[in-house]
């Protein structure tokens, strides 16, 4: 009967005691006369380890291999064991050792050999774990977390097997990828386990994973648990939301505020912080589109059906040119549309979509057309909109459009965009970014501004003064100057003098109309140095600030609407008013210049009249002074006659208030009684009906100080300075000051003087002439002046005073000439009584002056 080896299962003859193949004791023969254990059978010669350990039988050999594993492994690899076993005559074991040496893993190779050795001293491997349940506690998403799984072999030989991570993608076995790991070890082994925090998903329930361990030493299942709490939404209207549904609910309640959180990526970041996958794919839309996008992604709302307005886009451009275009994605449904696009070619750039309700506009641009003249470039524009609806729009760019279109400029060329689409009403070119615009476009607003300004100016020039404004101002100022209301009569409307104004400043000059300038026959004889009066000036002193009448500055300007009161003629009169406003002080000064009848009754005198108004709410201290650069014929330095003042003034005079006479006068040819020439007279103490005129405060007769002279003037002799090198001529002027005094709010002051022609009727054999004021006030003193030519000291001049007039106290009818001279002056101070006309006569010896009429009336003129 065949015996089967219980170890190798091979058949042996019925009488065999030991297995022919592995020497194992066959059944029925155990402890029955043969060797009890093959492993204890002594080798013919021992196997000696490099350490000197001797192995005399298989048991010792197996134990030595177990205990000196590394050395045994090397001996196996190097073939010593194979040779030794072959030498024992155990071809089977030698062959097994040879195969084991070739095993890829040396440890497993040795392990296999040991299994085949005929010994029973080596026990089976037995796997043991420290724990079969691991709780990691709270794990943060984004953090790093690792731990070791400790395995131990409590048996012998080698444990080998696999460990598999089940239902726990967040659990990494060692540093390698994959969820399964093979292992083998002899005594113990630590498996490092890493938490893949990126794969953690926040949840209120703990995460649970399993590790299944299969080995030749036994099988186990290890449970791994971790807590990953949900992080609530941190801020804004979505604050506190702990789930996408709660986010959706809060977003629905505050859609506009929530939109910003979706748009800025805050919601996506929150998803990421919880380890969740953000449902929205692609770029976030803006505005309400972002909320719609989220709701669609969650499946809370169906996406609207959208359509695109371009099936293809054809562009034409010249190299280097900028092109732009806009496409629209629209929906008929009343839901926000969002979209984004991308291009597969670098020359076609895609802008961010502009969302506007049911329309999303995407700007396309070609920053610089490539230098590929003559070629047509192709690109694909992929547009993605609500519900991942995709459109693929082919785009062509024909380079070298300028050649095709001849003289087309870049701007024109860029306008030839997508001609096929221009035909459709749905395609509208959108405004382009500023950089994409042709450069001349930037000049357009500047040109429009210039045009607008120019149009306004031209219209302003063409239009009349605004009627409502003009009427209003006229109404306010009608009769504002009381002098304009006065009426008077003249003997002859043809004036004997003329007034010429300087166009800018309204300064004025005076000249005769009937007599020629002796030095220039083309001109008329002047009474002021400049026929337009440019050398005269009038200064207004307001609170110690000096303003020249007619000089415009920031805050002194011509009055009236838009300066319309610069010069206003007085109706039916030969007069003009000019009003200047001093806006800082709100003071208004009106200059009136009018040719009025003088003592002769003819229009031979210029009345100069200033009205000062304080329109301010507060007081101001105001004074005014006028300067006339006197001139007569060709003579700029004529001596002045000051009634009551001895001698002629041919140097300078400075008179204060009470010593200022009624008038002063100059004679063109003072030394020629036969032809005295023109007599110019300046009236200084005027009386006007119904008007209270301020009396003059100071009078200067001196050298002309220049047309820029200010308020304060240091009088200098009108005669030239002989010490100088220059041959200067006499140059006279008259400067009149009126009081510098406080004006209360709404106060008005008037000052005036006259300048014009006087008359000198020389009689008495050309030796004597009388000069009297044009008129005198009743019951007032006045001065009568006698010009005496070729007088000798001691000559007596007698004035015959008519009834109605009388000599003032202390005066005598007869005056004695106190010095000889070609011409001299004699004065009498008279007193008037009632009104009327009185003839004065004078005589020097037998010579009699022609009578001179004195008019006594309430007003010096027009009374």
């Amino acid at each position: 009967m065949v015996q089967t080896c219980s170890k190798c299962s091979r058949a042996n003859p019925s009488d065999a005691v030991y297995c022919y193949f592995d020497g194992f004791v066959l059944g029925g023969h155990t402890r029955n006369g043969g060797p009890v254990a093959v492993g204890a059978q002594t080798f013919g010669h021992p196997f000696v380890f490099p350490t000197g350990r001797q192995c005399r039988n298989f048991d010792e050999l197996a134990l030595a291999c177990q205990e000196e594993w590394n050395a045994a492994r090397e001996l196996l690899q190097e073939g010593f064991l194979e040779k030794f076993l072959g030498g024992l005559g155990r071809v089977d074991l030698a062959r097994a050792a040879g195969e084991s040496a070739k095993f890829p893993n040396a440890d497993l190779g040795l392990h296999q050999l040991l299994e085949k050795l005929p010994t029973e001293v080596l026990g089976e491997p037995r796997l043991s774990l420290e724990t079969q349940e691991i709780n990691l506690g709270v794990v943060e998403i984004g953090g790093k977390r690792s731990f070791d799984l400790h395995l131990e072999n409590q048996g012998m030989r080698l444990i080998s097997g696999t460990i598999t991570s089940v239902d726990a993608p967040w659990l990494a076995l060692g540093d390698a990828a994959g969820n399964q790991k093979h292992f083998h070890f002899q005594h113990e082994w630590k498996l490092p386990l890493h938490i893949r925090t990126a794969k953690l998903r926040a949840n209120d329930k703990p995460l649970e994973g399993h590790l299944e361990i299969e080995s030749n030493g036994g099988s186990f299942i290890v449970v791994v648990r971790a807590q990953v709490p949900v992080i609530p939404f941190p801020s804004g209207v979505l604050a506190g939301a702990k789930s996408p549904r709660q986010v959706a609910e809060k977003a629905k309640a505050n859609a506009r505020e929530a939109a910003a959180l979706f748009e800025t990526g805050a919601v996506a970041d929150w998803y990421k912080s919880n380890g969740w996958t953000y449902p929205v794919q692609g770029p976030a839309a803006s505005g309400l589109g972002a909320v719609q996008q989220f709701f669609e992604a969650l499946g809370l709302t169906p996406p609207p059906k959208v359509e695109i307005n371009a099936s293809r886009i054809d562009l034409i451009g010249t190299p280097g040119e900028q092109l732009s275009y806009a496409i629209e994605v629209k929906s008929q449904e009343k839901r926000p549309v969002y979209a984004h696009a991308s291009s597969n070619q670098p020359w076609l750039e895609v802008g961010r979509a502009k969302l506007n309700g049911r329309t999303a506009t995407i700007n396309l641009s070609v920053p610089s057309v490539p230098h590929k003249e003559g070629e047509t470039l192709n690109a694909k524009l992929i547009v993605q909109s609500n519900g991942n609806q995709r459109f693929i729009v082919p785009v062509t760019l024909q380079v070298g459009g300028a050649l095709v279109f001849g003289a087309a400029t870049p701007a024109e060329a860029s306008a030839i965009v997508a001609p096929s689409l221009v035909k459709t009403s749905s395609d509208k070119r959108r405004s382009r970014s500023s950089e994409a615009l042709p450069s001349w476009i930037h000049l357009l607003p500047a040109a429009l501004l210039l045009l607008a300004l120019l149009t306004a100016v031209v219209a302003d020039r063409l239009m009349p003064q605004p009627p409502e404004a003009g009427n209003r101002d006229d109404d306010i100022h009608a009769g504002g100057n009381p002098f304009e209301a006065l009426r008077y009569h003249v003997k002859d409307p043809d004036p004997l003098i003329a007034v010429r104004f300087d166009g800018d400043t309204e300064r004025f000059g005076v000249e005769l109309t009937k007599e020629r300038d002796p030095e220039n026959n083309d001109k008329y004889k002047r009474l002021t140095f400049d026929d337009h009066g440019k050398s005269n000036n009038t200064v207004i002193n307001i609170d110690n600030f000096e303003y020249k009448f007619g000089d415009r500055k920031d805050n002194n300007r011509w009055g009236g609407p838009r300066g319309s009161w610069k010069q206003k003629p007085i109706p039916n009169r030969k007069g003009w008013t000019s009003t200047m406003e001093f806006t800082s002080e709100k003071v208004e000064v009106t200059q009136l210049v009018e040719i009025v009848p003088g003592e002769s009754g003819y229009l031979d005198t210029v009345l100069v009249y200033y009205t000062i108004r304080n329109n301010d709410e507060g007081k101001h201290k105001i004074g005014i002074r006028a300067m006339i650069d006197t001139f007569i014929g060709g003579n700029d330095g004529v001596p002045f006659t000051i009634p009551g003042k001895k001698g002629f003034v041919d140097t300078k005079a400075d008179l204060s208030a009470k010593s200022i006479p009624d008038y002063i006068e100059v004679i063109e040819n003072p030394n020629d009684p036969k032809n005295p020439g023109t007599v110019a007279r300046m009236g200084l103490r005027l009386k006007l009906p119904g008007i209270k005129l301020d009396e003059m405060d100071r009078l200067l007769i001196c050298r002309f100080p220049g047309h820029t002279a200010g308020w304060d003037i240091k009088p200098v002799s009108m005669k030239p300075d002989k010490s100088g090198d220059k041959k200067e001529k006499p140059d006279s002027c008259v400067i009149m000051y009126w009081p510098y005094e406080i004006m209360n709010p709404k106060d008005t002051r008037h000052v005036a003087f006259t300048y014009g022609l006087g008359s000198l009727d020389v009689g008495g054999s050309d030796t004597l002439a009388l000069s009297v004021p044009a008129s005198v006030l009743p019951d007032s003193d006045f001065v009568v002046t006698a010009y005496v030519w070729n007088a000798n000291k001691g000559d007596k001049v007698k004035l015959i005073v008519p009834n109605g007039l009388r000599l003032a106290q202390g005066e005598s009818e007869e005056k004695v000439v106190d010095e000889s001279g070609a011409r001299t002056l004699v004065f009498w101070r008279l007193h008037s009584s009632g009104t009327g006309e009185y003839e004065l006569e004078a005589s020097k010896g037998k010579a009699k002056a022609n009578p001179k009429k004195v008019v006594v009336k309430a007003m010096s003129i027009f009374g």
Partner: protein
Amino acid sequence: MSFKLFIYYCALLGGWAAFLSWGFAQGLGIRRLDSAYLRAALIAAVLGFLVAGAVGFADALLNAKGSQRWMRLAICLGVGLVGGSFGGLVGQVLNSMMHAPLVFGWILVGICIGASVGVFDVVRAVKKAEELHLPFKKTLNGCIGGCIGGLLGGLLFGFMFPNDKIPRTDLAIGLVVLGLCIGLMIGLAQVFLKEAWLKVTRGFRVGRELMLSKNETTIGRAESCDLGLFGDNTIERTHARILLKDNRYLLADADTPGGTFLNEQRIGAPTPLKSGDVIRVGNSVLEFGERQKRT
């Protein structure tokens, strides 16, 4: 918008705003008011309101985003209105009381308009408890520009106004010149006195420039970013940041998978920037500029 265009539009919008302010002054009858103080204050208020709004609009286009632009504009309008009326009134008072030239008033108006451009940044920095250096600098630059513009424009205004031959439009010409000058000088001051800036050399809107006026400037695809680079899907919503720390500008990546590159080197930690550095985010390329070395 490039800096050149910014300057140009500051001046142009200033001129248009001044022209409109003349229209208001003319239409509302402000010029016919008796009180010089009220007249000056109202005309300057309208001018300040509109010119500050115009310059603020140009600034918002260059330096702001989204709804912040309207907030900037609103603040500019408010500051311009108040500052303009204040400047006009003070200028008139100085003129009336001390005979100071009217140009002083226009200088004050210009300063207020210039200041309006930076007020938003100051308010924002205060609210967020951020460093005030840059916002103050921007405000100061605006004041300097407004002052020079007010001086120059005010002098030209004095030459052109009043003009009896064009009694209605003399003010228009004067104001337009004034508005142009104030706008131009504010724009010039902002650009020439800027400390640091970015220029897009490749990507969305090539040539666009951005002044760095905050302690943190964000770059990315989101509209909320200070420098939006839209249409480039390789760029994250917030891709990179430029930080001002210890008087140095640093480039930081916002933990993006694609990364941020400085001079073609991917950066990890925040990296100091120097003028001329090239920054690449996604497919877009930026150039960093700095006027002076900060110490």
